[in-house]
């Protein structure tokens, strides 16, 4: 409470969030602490700022360790045992909590919280016993706190005898649990992810899409309860798939983007009335559409059917070694006036932040 270091800590947080001293942002590092929860290994993200120093390069020269092992064995033990049939122990199974990560992400990107909009917002109310106070019914007495206060009082007043510890509560020692009413907005929202899986999308591109979609998913889920996700993949034809498949699938062939938009339109019309649902569309592609005429079809599909009913249409183009990558230009040209349309380009993993930031900057 009121530690001197809090000031330094707050200052550090502000730098990390990019509010002050933007020049330091480029030295931001992320490392992790490895922890253990039951059988699972968890990773706790730690942020740091590593100001430059003269230092040695890679540690290819190795070091000195201690323990058993023959030359050639891995240092961290992993497969050193017999035949290596056991799973390596050092595998991270989960991250700390998605919640926390999304929180960090939100803080860092300064993402505004997405306000549930429309009149169909349902707000649920529930009581949460999270507080503490000095009055209340005996049934809610917080024994540990009460005991601690009594103990502290007795020690301070010199009544406490360690040889014959006897703690007697007084009225003023008593602490009670108290509740707060938590209002949590509950909104209906659906996200439809569309991904181009044509031959030109390589593993690298898919990895980018996977990461970006993951973060968008995490972020939206944090802000909405009861969120639904639908996944569409397309080459010249579009099909709906489940989440697993969406991130794994590998197909070949040409690209007809309109097929995906048409399917999205069907899904929305059949299941999600725009008056009841917040609808988010995200489309990831390398922007290499098969024909100009199909691109035009896409635009008319968007303007006539999709855009009127969705909160947002995010188009994210990943850089690819093949193809023209022209679709983003088409979108710019025809849909420039549409507020719900946001586009971004992702070339490397570093761009993912900026891309997500672009998508959510306005708090749609």
């Amino acid at each position, binding site marked *: *409470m009121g*530690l*001197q*270091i809090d*000031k*330094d*800590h*707050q*200052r*550090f*947080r502000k*730098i990390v969030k990019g509010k*002050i*001293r933007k*020049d*330091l942002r480029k*030295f931001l590092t992320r490392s992790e*602490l*490895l*922890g253990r929860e039951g059988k699972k290994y968890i990773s*706790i993200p*730690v*942020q*740091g*700022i590593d*100001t*430059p*120093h*003269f*230092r*040695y*390069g*890679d*540690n*290819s*020269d*190795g*070091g*000195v*360790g*201690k*323990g*058993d*092992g*023959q*030359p*050639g*064995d*891995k*240092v*961290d*033990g*992993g497969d050193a045992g017999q035949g290596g049939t056991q799973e390596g122990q050092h595998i991270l199974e989960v991250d700390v909590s998605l919640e926390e990560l999304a929180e960090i992400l939100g803080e860092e990107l300064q993402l505004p919280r997405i306000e549930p909009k429309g009149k169909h917002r349902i707000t649920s109310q529930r009581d949460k016993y999270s507080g503490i106070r000095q009055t209340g019914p005996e049934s809610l007495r917080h024994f540990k706190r009460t005991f601690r206060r009594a103990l502290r009082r007795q020690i301070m007043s010199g009544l406490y005898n*360690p040889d014959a510890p006897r703690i007697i509560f007084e009225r003023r020692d008593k602490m009670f649990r108290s509740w707060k009413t938590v209002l949590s907005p509950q909104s209906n929202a659906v996200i439809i992810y569309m991904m181009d899986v044509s031959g030109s999308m390589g593993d690298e591109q898919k990895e980018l899409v996977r990461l970006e979609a993951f973060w968008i998913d995490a972020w939206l889920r944090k802000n909405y309860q009861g969120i639904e996700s639908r996944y569409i993949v397309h080459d010249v034809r579009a099909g709906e798939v489940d989440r697993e498949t969406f991130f794994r699938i590998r197909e070949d062939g040409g690209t007809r983007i309109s097929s995906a938009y048409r399917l999205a339109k069907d899904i929305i019309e059949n299941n999600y009335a725009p008056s009841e649902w917040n609808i988010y569309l995200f489309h990831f592609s390398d922007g290499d559409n098969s024909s100009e005429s199909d691109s035009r079809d896409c635009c008319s599909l968007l303007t006539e059917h999709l855009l009127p009913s969705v909160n947002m249409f995010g188009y994210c183009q990943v850089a690819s070694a093949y193809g023209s990558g022209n679709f983003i230009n088409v979108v710019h040209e025809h849909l420039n006036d549409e507020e719900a349309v946001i586009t971004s380009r992702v070339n490397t993993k570093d761009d993912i932040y900026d891309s997500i930031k672009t998508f959510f900057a306005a708090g749609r």
Partner: protein
Amino acid sequence: MNQPLPKAIAEQAEIIAEHARREGLDFYPTIFEMLSSEQMSQVAAYGGFPKRYPHWRFGMEYEKLRKQHVYGLGRIYEMVINNDPCYAYLLNDNMFVDHKTVIAHVYGHCDFFKNNTWFSRTNRRMIDEMANHGTRVQRYVDRYGQERVEEAVDTFLSFENLIDPHSMFMRREAQVQSSAQIEQADKDRRENGDVGRYPAKPYMDRYINPPEKLREDREALQKEATDAHVRYPERPQRDVMLFLLHNAPLEDWEADILSIIRQEAYYYAPQGQTKIMNEGWASYWHSTIMTNYVLEASELIDYCEHHSGTLATSPGRLNPYKLGIELLRDIEHRWNTGRHGPEYDACDDMATRREWGKDKAPKGRIVGRGSPGREKIYQVRALYNDVTFLDEFLTPEFVEEQKLYHYRQDPATGKMVVVNRDFDQIKRQMLFMLTNHAQPYIYVMDGNYKNRGELYLAHSHTGMDIEIKFGVETLKQIFKVWKRPVHLHARIDDDPILFTFDGEQSTQQHIDEEVPKPANEF
């Protein structure tokens, strides 16, 4: 902020201090304080001190320590400050036996601080000094604004490792002789033509001291004198911080902050130089005192858990506590059994070596006191640092017993793999990791490079290249201070490269005949 030390613990501290003194430890008066875990994290983030100047990196450290604590990944049991009196902190939610162990451990550290020669030049009033630094920096913050001060601190921190820890022990010539005296002596020497004139009879003088040779010598001497004057610095200077402090165009307040950071870097340097010994010594003593004197039977399990946790090793990382205590015990054992000296070294019969001096080893409950081994480790703790400690006392037997190995990255898989258990290799690797705290040696070679006031630094290559990206970023930071182009001469993949930052862009060029030479070279 601190809570009063509970009476029971204060009593224990007295008892333990008494045992420690009887064992020969010699320490400053030691003040124990009890802290909550938040407070402990603060103190630890502040490098052991209750008050430091404001800076975000303490907040960063604090956040990390808090996370470690909250997720149960690490616990700071002990914190002790090299100061007279010594301050040590105990964590209030520790068990009683933990407190006892920590107290015994702390006395080991205090003794080390007081008696190890590498600490002999450190400021023993550092608590006050640090608080003063805090006040001074705070005053600059009030006057010039947090942003400006913080930026200055950040900049200076990027070369805080460029100091010369040995310089604390140097006596400068200037202190011995005033510069006027030296100049006078030089002048006399030059004017009298006293350049190695040999005594000779007048009729032989022409032959013994040929006038041409004398003239040549005189000219050479004069040239040298002028060159030395032009050379700046006169010889490669390792204390880059000092060079910048004296020569960079800094405002007064900036210079003051730079000197603060430099002073603190020097204060912490011996702790970096003696990590293994210091922790080993403290662990040796908590173990000796606890198991011989103060451990209650009921506390045994908890003590063992604490002790083995402290000394636990994980693959790929050497635990300084473990390495230190084992090596000290090995030395003690070797000296108790006479396993040192030419006779022992010459013996190459393994069986004899194993049995060497076994009958001499002292027996009894309190093994060490007064034994030659104990005497030896007291001497070691006074005179050595980690580098000399390992260099002198690491033996093949020890390496084998401790199962040390050398590992490196397998180029094929990128995984770290055990390479071998070769003693020379292991020793070389360990010494390399410890030398200069595993920091590259950087020297100022020229403060007026190309006669244009540019700064020329050089990396003295000792086997490993420096990291280029960070090197360039650091140059940019140094430029902020020097305000003229800065250069770094480094060897990358056996190629001499000159990295330059001129305020706008950073460039690099291969160093060949064309590139002007700096005033000094290695």
